[in-house]
């Protein structure tokens, strides 16, 4: 068993790499920037500098591999540069899938996102539920199209499984794709935080270690062409802020601002700064329930959910000890 991992420098990818390394697997990493690899040890690990948008570099890395975890993606939400989402997340995935067919890969796990299922009403969504809203975010739409590609290749005979993590949080670098951890760090270090008035809306938060386990389980037991939500508990924003404040004894003051005012500000900022992280559609994303049901992964894969409070405490302890 020789495993190729894409996206190994990302939050999830780096944790997955560590886990597989601990389990003693032979790993091949396809990375754009080898220096960005966070692993403490490089035992049983081959590093290929390359890019999933460059099929030649994929071929070099994938040759001789038997299994693939495809976690690489552009995850950052922003208004400009939408083509990059499709170039990397769709065309890049197509490149990986084509190579996987060519090199007779035994099994591939594709990291999608629970964002492809969209917002929920009052009942947590399952993999079968229809999307009730059109795609607004280019990230969500690109991941949806990439998932379609995976299913298309499964029809052609590829053994591939899709996993859909929800909002991942946990110890580790507070990167863009670790948004909850970033928020916690903010609460720990800053005096004041402006938040949209959306306290009642519930979202789903998955603990990083659960999601890593979910990937490994999907490789072992996932059925070809199926999607598995890798989620956690459904928590309201109010509960989230209160839990963080309660455990961390944060002195940060939360100031609630009506959603419409934030939207106005977002429109205003986007006039001057195309790279702003504050976009009106991003705010709208938060003013909705995004509840998920991980029952399928639990019953079919043996996925387990760490209680939210436990995961949160581990994250806060980590941030207090290791991060400034």
């Amino acid at each position, binding site marked *: 068993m020789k495993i190729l991992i894409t996206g190994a420098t990302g939050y999830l990818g780096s944790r997955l790499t560590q886990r597989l390394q601990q389990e003693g697997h032979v790993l091949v990493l396809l990375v754009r920037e080898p220096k960005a690899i966070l692993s403490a040890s490089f035992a049983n690990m081959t590093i290929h500098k390359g890019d999933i948008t460059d099929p030649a570099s994929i071929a070099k890395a994938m040759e001789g591999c038997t299994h693939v975890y495809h976690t690489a993606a552009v995850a950052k939400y922003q208004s400009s540069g939408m083509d990059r989402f499709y170039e990397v997340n769709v065309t890049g995935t197509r490149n990986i899938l084509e190579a996987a067919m060519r090199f007779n890969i035994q099994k591939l796990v594709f990291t999608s996102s629970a964002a492809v299922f969209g917002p929920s009403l009052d009942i947590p969504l399952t993999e079968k539920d229809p999307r009730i809203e059109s795609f607004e975010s280019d990230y969500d739409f690109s991941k949806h199209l990439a998932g*379609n590609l995976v299913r298309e290749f499964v029809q052609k005979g590829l053994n591939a499984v899709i996993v859909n993590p929800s909002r991942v949080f946990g110890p580790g670098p507070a990167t863009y794709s670790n948004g909850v951890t970033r928020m916690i760090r903010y609460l720990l270090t800053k005096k004041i935080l402006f938040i949209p008035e959306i306290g009642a809306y519930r979202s789903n938060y998955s603990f990083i270690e659960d999601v890593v386990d979910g990937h490994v389980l999907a490789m072992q037991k996932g059925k070809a062409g199926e999607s598995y939500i890798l989620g956690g508990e459904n928590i309201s924003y109010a509960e989230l802020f209160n839990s963080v404040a309660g455990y961390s004894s944060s002195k940060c003051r939360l100031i609630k601002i009506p959603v419409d005012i934030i939207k106005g500000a977002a429109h205003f900022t986007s006039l001057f700064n195309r790279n702003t992280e504050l976009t009106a559609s991003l705010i709208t994303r938060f003013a909705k329930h995004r509840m998920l049901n991980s029952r399928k992964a639990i019953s079919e894969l043996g996925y387990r959910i760490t209680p939210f409070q436990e995961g949160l405490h581990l994250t806060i302890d980590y941030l207090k000890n290791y991060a400034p």
Partner: protein
Amino acid sequence: MNREKYTLITGAGTGFGKALALECARLGHPLVLVSLPGPELSCLADFIRKNHQVPVISVETDLSEEGNCIALYNRIRNAGIRINVLINNAGIGGTDRFEKKAMSFYKKQLQVNVLAPTFLSYLFLDELKSNSPSHILNVSSMAGFFCVPQKQVYGGSKSYLLSFSGSLALELKKQNISVSVVCPGAMNTTDSLTWQNKKASHILKWSVMNPERVASIALKKMFAKRKVIIPGFWNNVICLLHRLLPEWFRVFLMEQQLKRIERKQDPQKQGLAGTVSIAA
């Protein structure tokens, strides 16, 4: 027997029909959802039952067959289900040069877009009369107003619905049945259309609407018995301009549009769009 009155929606499994179904459910209307066979319809029906607590009857059938339209009517009547809203949404779209598609495609397109709404309105007429106040909503398109390039048959079928609805509305007013026709512009319904709309020129992009928004406007105005429903500010601006501009200028604009479409169809210039349209 259930005494509640149901709303029947065709083409309800995906796209605009799905948005109409979700909006009707949100408003609390019991539903008969009709769609082509496939997994989408039962998933949608389950979702609506769970989340909105309204009864849903789903029927998987192909309305391009006259016999299936009749069978649908008989099935609803025999089950004792009372219909007071009929939404003829099912349709087959398409943008291509006329000679590129087979005659069999156009036959099917006309059967679904023209004959099915005609037959269903005919079959359910007595039902709608006895359950009045009732409503018929036909789903036309902005392409029903204009001669949009490469939408010859589609545009023609949508013009038919405009004309059919207007005339029928006059007849049925006394029986307390309103007949409305909704003419959406570009909508983010399928993956490939969503992709096209993202890549569209600025002015076109402004007019793009999400189906859930159009569904909410269409239903509100249908219940208000509005005859012709044009959803969205920009679509109304386009319609107004269409009326004000001289003929030669409208033809000029459409010719420009045709050139743009033909440029996009050039496979050498597709690039990323080609990749995604295959994915979609």
